[in-house]
C-alpha cells in the first residue's frame, strides 16, 4: 500500500533522534489517535536550520513523513521551512494512501510547532506562523461508513 519512497524512509529513517538544547522543539498529535510526532530544531543566528531530528510514535506513514520532513527543512531558513506544506511532504514521498494523508499534515504541524517554540524562546515573531493547535485530529471525521 505504500510507495517505495515511503518504505525507504520508514525502514531507514533520516535524522531520527534528539537534539540536546534545541533551538525549538514541538510535539503534535496524541496517543489516542495513534500518532505523535516530535521535532527538534537547531537554528543558527542567521535563522538557518542547521540540524533537525525527530521522534515519532505512529504508523509507517507517520514515520516516513517525519523522516522526509526533516530532509525538506534541513538547511533551509525559517521562512522557507514554513513553506514546506503537507502537500510537499506527500509529493516527496511519491504519494500516500488517502487514509494516511493526515500524517503529512501532522508533519507540517510538527515543524510549525517547533518553530513556534523557537520563536517564543527568542521572543520573535515569525510571519505567517500561527500557534499550533492542541490536537490536530479534532476536526477529522471517521473514515469508515459501512451501513
Amino acid at each position, binding site marked *: 500500500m505504500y510507495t517505495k519512497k515511503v518504505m525507504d524512509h520508514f525502514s531507514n529513517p533520516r535524522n531520527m533522534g534528539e537534539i540536546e538544547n534545541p533551538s525549538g522543539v514541538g510535539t503534535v498529535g496524541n*496517543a489516542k489517535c*495513534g500518532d505523535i510526532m516530535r521535532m527538534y530544531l537547531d537554528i543558527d543566528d542567521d535563522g538557518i536550520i542547521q540540524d533537525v531530528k525527530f521522534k515519532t510514535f505512529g504508523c509507517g506513514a507517520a514515520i516516513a513523513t517525519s523522516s522526509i520532513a526533516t530532509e525538506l527543512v534541513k538547511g533551509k531558513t525559517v521562512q522557507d521551512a514554513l513553506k514546506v506544506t503537507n502537500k510537499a511532504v506527500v509529493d516527496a514521498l511519491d504519494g500516500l494512501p488517502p*487514509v494516511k494523508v493526515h500524517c503529512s499534515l501532522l508533519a507540517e504541524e510538527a515543524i510549525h510547532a517547533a518553530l513556534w517554540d523557537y520563536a517564543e524562546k527568542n521572543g520573535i515573531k515569525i510571519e505567517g506562523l500561527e500557534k499550533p493547535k492542541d490536537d490536530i485530529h479534532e476536526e477529522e471525521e471517521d473514515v469508515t461508513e459501512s451501513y
Partner: protein
Amino acid sequence: MEKKIYLDNAATTKTRPEVVEAMLPYFSDMYGNPSSVYEFAAQNKKAIDEARLIIANALGADNSEVYFTASGTEADNWALIATAEAYEAKGNHIITSKVEHHGILHTCEYLQKRGFEVTYIDVDENGVIKLEQLEKAIRPSTILISIMFANNEIGTIQPIKEIGEIAKKHKVLFHTDAVQAFGQLDINVKDLGIDMLSASAHKLNGPKGIGFLYIRKGIRIRSLIHGGAQERGRRAGTENVPYIVGFGKAVQLAMDTRDERVKKEIELREHLIKRILTEIPYTRLNGHRKNRLPNNTNFSFQFIEGESLLIMLDMKNICASSGSACTSGSLDPSHVLLAIGLPHEIAHGSLRLTLSHENTMDEIDYTVDSIKEVVDKLRKMSPLYEDFVRRR
C-alpha cells in the same frame, strides 16, 4: 528467514490441498444446478447433503438445521436481522456484547436505525462477558441474545453454557458467532443451549466465501436473501456446490485432526507467550490466560504503534495482525482492546499472532527474536518512550 511465516490464522487460513482436491470436480465436470430435475444435477444435490451432514454431526445438530451462507458475516446478519423481523411482535430489544465482530456490531447499529434497541454488555479485563449484567439487561421485550463463542482478537472464550441457561430461563433466543471457535473448540449446540450459530469455512482451512447458520428446529426466522427456493426456501441463490463440498471436507479434516492440532498449537502458543513476556519489558498479554483459543496470542507493547510494528515484521517475512484485519487501515484502535480497559495508546501498540498446526518451534523462535529487535528499534524512535525514560 527466507520462508514466509504466516501467523495470521485468525484472519484467514490456507485452504487445505485436500479441500481443493474435493472441490475441483464440481467446477467443470459436475457443474449442474442442484435444483434441476435431471440426474446430472442430482449428484450435486447429494454432495451438498453430504457436506451438510458432516457439519451437522460436528455440531450435534440435525442436518436440516444447517443453512449455507456466503460468509460468517452473512450468517451473523441473517441471525440478527431476520430474528428481529420475525419476532418484532414480541419485542424490539436485542442484547449483545462490546467485543463482538463488526459483523454483529454494525448489524446492530443498522437495526437500531430501524427502531430496535440494543444493549451492549461489558466484559472484564480478560474479555469475559459480565453474566450478571447480561441477565439484568433482559427485559420483557428482549427477543435475542447474541454473544460470540470466542473472540477473534484476544481469543477469550465466553461462558456459552451459562449464557445458554440464562437465555433459556428467560425464554430469549440465543445466537452465537462461532466463526473463530468452530473447528477449534468442542461445540454441541444441544448441550450448550444454542439456538443459532454462525461459522465460516475460511477460518478452518476451507475456502473464503462460504459459511453457515445453524438454526434450531422450531425457530421462526425469515430469509435474509429472498428469491429461489434453495436451502429449503430459506436462503436464495444458486448453490455454491464446490465451496459447500469444500466446507464439508474442511470440517471433516478439522474434526479428525482436532486433538493433535490443538495440542501442538497450545505448545507453540505457550512457548511464544512465555518468551515474549519474559524477554520484552513493558509488554502485556491481552485476553484470558487460560480460557482462550488454542491458536491465539495478543500482546500490547507499550510506547509503540501497531502498524509500524506489522510492517517491520512483514519486512522480516512475518505475517501478523494488529487488532482485526478488517479494521487495519482505520484510525480507530481495536474496540475489543478498549473494552477490556486498555488506554488508547496501549491499544494502538497491539499485535495479534494466531498460529496454525503448520507452524514450527523454529518459526516461533525466529518470530520472537524479530519482535524483540523491532520493538527495540521502534521504542528508540518513540517520543513516548523518550518521555518515559526521562521521567524514570
